[in-house]
């Protein structure tokens, strides 16, 4: 059987989403939670064999003593969450070591050289989305960590290319694979600008994904910087876009939530074959 990417999405992963749910205006929380649950329903309806979650790592697994642009989590099982305060009960989830090895092989074949790790702790970047998308933690998960913390960062086109690697590996392995890119949108956590949300940037980004997704690769670094360093995490959405083959996004939600210090979005990509 020929495998395929059967689902691709981009969602925000701010820890406040589950850590402080009731700090948000009730309407914003209700709409965003509904959108995340809808993304989850669609993901599960796609019957994936593996769920690839692409996230940044917020200094739990990786530091600047050795900071890869991309890191593939190889383990047969993963534990989370790293942070107890995000109000997600401790969980274990199956990994996808065989598919992880295939991803490494296809990365090398396609001219990319990710790092790999046999021990990735799932922190909020993965745990928050999974708590909505697969709340029973009953789908094998392949974590991919992208450096969105400390420059030099992987350029957008390289993140897109990594999505193409995931697609090639899925097709070759005969697996049904879901890819979820997590992070963003505008935010600058822990800085004096925390809580400032660049609504104009967020809406522009979502509109590009909705109407002319490949243009996202031309977004200027300076414009992304101006939306706060947390906006660097749109790289994960671009990786999911690459896995989807560049298909247009359906925007399910956008909620600028100051109390969560984040412009929160959720999209599902159409799959180009």
């Amino acid at each position: 059987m020929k495998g395929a990417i059967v689902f691709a999405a981009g969602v925000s992963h701010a820890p406040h989403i589950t850590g402080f749910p009731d700090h948000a205006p009730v309407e914003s929380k209700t709409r965003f939670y509904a959108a995340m649950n809808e993304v989850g329903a669609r993901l599960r309806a796609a019957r994936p064999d593996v769920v690839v979650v692409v996230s940044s790592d917020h200094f739990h697994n990786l530091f600047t003593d050795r900071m890869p642009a991309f890191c593939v989590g190889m383990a047969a099982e993963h534990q989370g969450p790293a942070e107890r305060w995000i109000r997600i009960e401790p969980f274990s989830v199956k990994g996808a070591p065989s598919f992880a090895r295939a991803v490494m092989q296809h990365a090398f074949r396609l001219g990319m050289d990710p790092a790999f790790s046999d021990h990735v702790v799932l922190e909020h970047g993965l745990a928050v989305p999974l708590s909505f998308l697969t709340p029973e933690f009953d789908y094998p998960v392949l974590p991919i960590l992208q450096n969105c913390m400390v420059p030099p960062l992987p350029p957008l086109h390289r993140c897109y290319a990594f999505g193409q690697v995931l697609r090639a590996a899925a097709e070759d392995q005969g697996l049904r694979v879901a890819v979820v890119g997590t992070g963003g949108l505008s935010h600058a956590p822990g800085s004096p600008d925390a809580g400032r949300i660049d609504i104009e940037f967020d809406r522009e980004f979502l509109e590009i994904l909705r109407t002319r997704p490949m243009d996202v690769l031309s977004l200027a670094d300076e414009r992304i910087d101006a939306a706060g360093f947390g906006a660097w995490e749109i790289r994960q959405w671009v990786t999911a876009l690459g896995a989807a083959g560049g298909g247009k996004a359906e925007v399910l939600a956008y909620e600028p939530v100051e109390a969560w210090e984040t412009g929160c979005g959720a999209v599902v990509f159409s799959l180009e074959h």
Partner: protein
Amino acid sequence: MALYALESYLFKLKNDPLSQQALVADPKSHLAVQAIDEAAKNAILNKDIGALWQLGVHPLLLVPLSRFLGMTPLEYRQRLAPHKGSRSISSSFEG
């Protein structure tokens, strides 16, 4: 190198409960043996998040430190507020 040493210490602190307990139990003794400079040690002892911000520490290493120091989110924001606009975070490698 001084910033790397400081951030390296904060990374270890963030992920090591024993170091967190040591900082809470006896901050001076704990910090005395860390390979970070005196300005950084004094800033941590004084909960001077603003000074650490000015030293260039990544904000996602400052936030967990503030928790271990017993600071509330409001106190953290208040201490950082005077430093708004004082430092830009750029994706430029030269930045």
